[in-house]
């Protein structure tokens, strides 16, 4: 048993150490201020880093409301007997298992080509939102379920409408759980590469991202750099990985702290 723990944590440690050691030389201000370049000494990841943060923000703004509202619907309002509600439940379960690259295919067909907005930041954000939506829904449902019924009944007894009960009692109580779940889902969105490759996060982008502009995200930039055999680019890839890991781990840390501090004992 101990051996298993050692392997698991040992690998994690080795990964982190190897990445940090490899990438350290290139981890400088330039990484954050300069655009990519064919000359590795001058290359940076500024557009990619900004785009990743930008994508994360949009995903947060889209996935949380839709996810929370869906969870509220399923937990508080939906009549389980109705067939359409069962369809919704089954859909969510399946979507959670769909590989992220299939979302990329969906995005390519409908968002990039279908609606025709092209390979722009918004398209990437929409697809990532769909990728993480099932996770946000599941986390929110768990959070809502853990609010004891007595809270609801008390509010009803005082004459509140269903929505008032949800908005004023259930949701506030469920916020820590939902926040944790959302942040974890978000950290996953930030690290996703496959769907973005499918919708054209382009190779060489030297300008800062805008909503309807071309873009490349940090994971994609790292992927492009790993393919370059020149060792300086490999170092850059590792440096980019450090930044990405830092972002993802920071998000995870926030989520865990939130979970521990605000865990309510009913």
């Amino acid at each position: 048993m101990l051996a298993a723990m050692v392997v698991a944590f040992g690998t994690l440690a080795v990964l982190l150490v190897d990445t940090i050691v490899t990438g350290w030389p290139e981890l400088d201000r330039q990484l954050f201020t300069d655009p990519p370049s064919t000359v590795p000494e001058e290359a940076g990841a500024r557009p990619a880093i900004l785009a990743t943060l930008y994508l994360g923000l949009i995903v947060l703004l889209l996935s949380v409301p839709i996810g929370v509202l869906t969870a509220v619907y399923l937990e508080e309002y939906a009549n389980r007997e109705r067939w359409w509600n069962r369809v919704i439940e089954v859909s969510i379960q399946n979507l959670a298992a769909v590989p992220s690259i299939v979302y990329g295919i969906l995005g390519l067909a409908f968002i990039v080509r279908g609606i025709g907005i092209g390979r722009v930041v918004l398209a990437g954000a929409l697809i990532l939102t769909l990728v993480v939506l099932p996770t946000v829904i599941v986390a929110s449902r768990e959070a809502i379920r853990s609010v004891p019924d007595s809270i609801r009944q008390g509010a009803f007894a005082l004459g509140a409408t269903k929505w008032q009960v949800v908005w004023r009692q259930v949701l506030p109580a469920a916020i820590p759980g939902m926040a944790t779940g959302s942040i974890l889902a978000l950290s996953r969105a930030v690290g996703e590469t496959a769907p973005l490759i499918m919708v054209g996060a382009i190779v060489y982008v030297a300008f800062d991202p805008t909503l309807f502009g071309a873009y490349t995200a940090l994971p994609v930039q790292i992927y492009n750099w790993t393919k370059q055999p020149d060792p300086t680019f490999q170092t850059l890839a590792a440096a980019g990985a450090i930044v990405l890991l830092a972002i993802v781990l920071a998000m995870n840390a926030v989520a865990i702290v939130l979970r521990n501090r605000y865990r309510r004992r009913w």
Partner: protein
Amino acid sequence: MSRPTKITAAAAVAAFALALAGCGGDGGGGGAITADGSSTVGPFTTKAAEDFRRESEGTEVTVGISGTGGGFERFCIGETDISNASRAIDEEEIAICEENGVEYLELQVVLDALTNVVNVENDWATCLTTDQLNAIWEPGSRIESWSQVDPSFPDVPLRLFGPGTDSGTFDYFTDAINGEEGASRTDYSPSEDDNVIVQGVSGERGGLGYFGFSYFEENQSRLEALAVDGGSGCVAPGVETAQDGSYTPLSRPLFIYVSLGSLEENESLEAFVRFTLENAQTIAEAAQYVPMSQEQLDEQLQKLEDALS
């Protein structure tokens, strides 16, 4: 969280979002240039774009590497302004461009010597004839070991890497070596990204791959180039042998195709193309390509002027 904290947090987020939206510069808007296509020509165009950006105060050029074929598909439906190509546009593609009303200008910008590369530990092969290359790469080829290429070679497993079928390099090589565009054995590791080929060959003792000269030049410490005997002796790929044509049959011109429609609409496109042609030699050397002669470039500049008038 208390209400004031929540409101502050929300305000901070909103401010950040607005700032990002605002400081996008001219990113996706007017003046931006989109290029896509060959991964052989890609780095050249990218270097041109970088240099141009410095001179022109931020005209944004994005460069994709979908492969020559993939680039034309996008170009001929009007999605891109420039198509990088490591072979000339073919009939099918011309037809699609006509269908969609896309008119273009074909410009040669730089030369290439298609290079066959092997692992640095490969000390037995230094030159292959076109017949040997054909035997290795032809459709249905059963050659699995170097000793089958030439009996004097050791019995080392042959590991093949090469461009995928969307690549102009693939088209050109198969045409030159196997006699027909697209005719090739299929059991090799294909990649649109030539860097993957570099990684593959440099990681396998028996590795053999082919791509544009610039990728060899950039990775000389990791790879060896083979000389090719096209019938008159072994010729090694290089700047001179490509320029004077003695490296046959694998020396070729590289192209950019510029959309005439985009030229009319987008002033910065004209400036970029002109810049690229005028500085083609310096860009080529910096990006480690084979530059064209000044005369050849002047011809291309003339083509541009003619098209613009």
